């Protein structure tokens, strides 16, 4: 899902690590042996009654080859070994992006360039839809780019709540129940995420007085507008309120996108099939964001794209700007809870000028205007309602959700496993890999790990919803809003066009 948001633009993500590539292998290997003891008591053993009957062949289809293929192939292999007589075919659509690795000043740098391929996505959706409408298609469908809402409406997906409730081998309490419960829409649960993530805010503790900072914490939730208004009260013209730019062409990672998501339910009502872009709220929102940039509260737009080589210079040390607040994702949470000098993982994105981060503290998790704290996911699957092998597809999905897979090394490195025990053990092995190359943690590191898991669980507890977004609407909004921020269209024109287009789309 994150990948869906990071679209329409080339994104260069660079993982900088001193010997990260080599140590990752060694670290993970020892991490595996460390968790093997608990793996033996894996909580997700399949139902005894069903084990003997698990046989047959299924196909799993996905668009995003980079995220899914290796993971699914390895999982399929393990599944086939565990259940002889089964065969799991993996069918990935997109081209694998090129991964470049080079050495610079003793550092191994991996660079992955992801080209947005909207035509490829459209082709995949078209192909999948056509096959599904003929009553065929893959048994298990990755919900990476497929239009979930449309598929549910046309009865293409099986209701997984029935499987969850009726299968004695599936225990909801082993997972983040608040996330599973938040997936219900159209009277059913149509897909299950294997992992989850969330956005949160930090504040610069040197710019906030104690009285103001007392309202922040990992157990709090804020909208970006709340923080913006709070920031205005302490803004002195020196440091900007947010590091997030007003607008970004890629349609994500900017303040407009954040605020649009916060009000998504107001602008688009999927139940009543109505669009509300012309009632003044949307116009007020885009004008508000534009004014914030013009008055210097936030940067106007995202920084220019940088070459992977240039990114090596983008380190904590050479940042000079301070911001009152920053919007961050899970990747930053490790740095948030452990600021020691030996942390070897640094993540930089080409357009993320975050400024000085050493004094950042957690302000709270991101929430929308309706009080919904949503989550995102890297991988999620639904079962084809017309599959002839729904039971086997469910068994494989259950296997993907099991401790065995969820805690395995190399999985969900950029997100959190939805399995509770796997999530805790993965955090531990990740800390060991990053801080000790797989060795034991010292007391400080253990405290840091505890702080990390506490923050993760506290913020995860706040999650209470999931907004089923529509990529067609998202594309319409991104295109029109670009005209507005480029000065090519007025707010009224944009509102009118969006009202017409989205209204038409919803009314079809």
């Amino acid at each position: 899902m994150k990948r869906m948001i990071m679209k329409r633009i080339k994104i260069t993500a660079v993982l900088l690590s001193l010997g990260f590539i080599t140590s990752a292998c060694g670290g993970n290997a020892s991490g595996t042996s460390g968790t093997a003891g608990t793996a033996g008591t894996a909580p997700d053993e399949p139902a005894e009654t069903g084990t003997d009957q698990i046989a047959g062949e299924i196909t799993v289809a996905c668009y995003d080859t980079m995220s899914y293929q290796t993971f699914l192939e390895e999982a399929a292999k393990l599944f086939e070994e565990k259940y002889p007589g089964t065969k799991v075919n993996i069918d990935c659509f997109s081209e694998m992006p090129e991964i470049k690795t080079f050495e610079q000043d003793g550092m191994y740098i991996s660079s992955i360039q992801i080209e947005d391929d909207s035509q490829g996505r459209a082709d995949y959706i078209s192909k999948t839809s056509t096959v599904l409408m003929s009553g065929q298609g893959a048994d298990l469908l990755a919900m990476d780019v497929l239009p979930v809402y449309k598929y549910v409406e046309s009865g293409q997906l099986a209701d997984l709540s029935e499987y969850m409730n009726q299968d004695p081998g599936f225990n909801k309490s082993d997972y983040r129940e608040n996330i599973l419960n938040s997936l219900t829409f159209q009277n059913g649960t149509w897909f299950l995420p294997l992992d989850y993530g969330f956005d949160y805010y930090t504040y610069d503790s040197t710019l906030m007085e104690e009285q103001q900072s007392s309202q922040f914490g990992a157990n709090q939730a804020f909208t970006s507008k709340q923080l913006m208004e709070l920031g205005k009260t302490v803004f002195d013209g020196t440091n900007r309120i947010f590091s997030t730019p007003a607008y970004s062409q890629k349609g994500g990672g900017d303040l407009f996108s954040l605020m649009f998501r916060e009000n998504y339910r107001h602008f688009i009502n999927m139940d009543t099939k109505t669009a509300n872009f012309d009632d003044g709220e949307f116009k007020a929102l885009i004008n508000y964001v534009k004014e914030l940039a013009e008055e210097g509260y936030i940067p106007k737009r995202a920084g220019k794209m940088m070459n992977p080589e240039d990114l090596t210079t983008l380190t904590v040390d050479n940042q000079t700007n301070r911001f009152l607040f920053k919007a961050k994702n899970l990747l930053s949470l490790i740095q948030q809870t452990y600021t020691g000098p030996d942390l070897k993982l640094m993540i930089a994105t080409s357009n993320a000028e975050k400024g000085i981060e050493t004094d950042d503290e957690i302000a709270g998790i991101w929430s929308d205007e309706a009080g919904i704290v949503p989550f995102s996911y890297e991988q999620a699957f639904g079962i084809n309602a017309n599959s002839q092998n729904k039971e086997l597809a469910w068994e494989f999905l259950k296997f993907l959700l099991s401790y065995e897979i969820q805690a395995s090394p190399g999985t969900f490195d950029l997100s959190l496993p939805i399995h509770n025990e796997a999530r805790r053990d993965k955090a531990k092995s990740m800390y060991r890999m990053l801080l000790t190359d797989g060795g034991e943690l010292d007391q400080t590191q253990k405290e840091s790990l505890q702080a990390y898991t506490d923050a993760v669980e506290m913020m995860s507890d706040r999650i209470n919803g999931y907004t089923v977004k529509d990529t067609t609407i998202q594309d319409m909004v991104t295109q029109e809003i670009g005209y507005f921020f480029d000065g090519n269209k007025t707010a009224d024109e944009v509102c009118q066009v969006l009202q017409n287009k989205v209204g038409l789309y919803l009314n079809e």
Partner: protein
Amino acid sequence: MKKLYKHTGLLFLLPGLSGFTIFYVWPFFLSLGYAFTDKAVNGTFQGFKNFIDLFSNKAYLKGLFNTCKFIAVSVPLNMGVALGFSLMAKGLKKHRDLFTLVFLIPLVIPSGSMAFFWSSLFSYNGVLNGWLGLLGLGKVNWLDSNIAFAVMVLIFTWKNLGYIMVLYLDGLSQIPLDYYEASWMDGGKPGQIFRSITLPLLLPTSILVLIMSLINSFKVFREIYMITGNYPHDSIYTLQHFMNNMFASLNYPRLTTATAVLVTVIACFAQLLLNLERKASS
């Protein structure tokens, strides 16, 4: 031998008819079943509910209205302009073929190239707005305002003008010159001659042109779709947009219902025009 001769026509017709039946007629009737079910896969029969729902669907009604409006404006306009140019071409003593050929060029330009050209011309940051900027005028939202309808009519006319001209030129060439000579000798004025001789004798051709223009008016969707995508401005959202989007959103029952209605209306209309043409010819 006589028997074989009797069936020769049928034999010649067979290859074309087979293709038409296999690729058009058979799939149409095969998919027609969806129009009476609630969903495409494992659907249940629900009578005419889809047809009733279709006529209360706002998007369909908008597409239907725009399509009718487009046909009402573009088809007579296209016919009138084509007839005018045909008369001009007929009157030319030199370079008549070259004149006609110029209007046929749009027919051989691939749709993709044509869409690129129109898009470059009419997009918000396109050539036309660039020229307006040079003149100190503000930009016009050609494709995302009510002006888009005029753009669609222009594209249709530009694309089909040459084809209709050729049909009219053929029709004009079949009018015996004797009629015109007799009229001139009787002191007929050009306007009178056009009203009393040219127009009545062009009626069979005009009916054929009307049928062809009607059919071609549905084909303008391809260019409009390439330029403005699935969800264009309200004024140029046609029935083809609706049906194309129904396919994309997997709503096959609604798609086939809309198709069935459209095919029935076009078939009835074409039959009516053909009857008229037969009467006019006789």
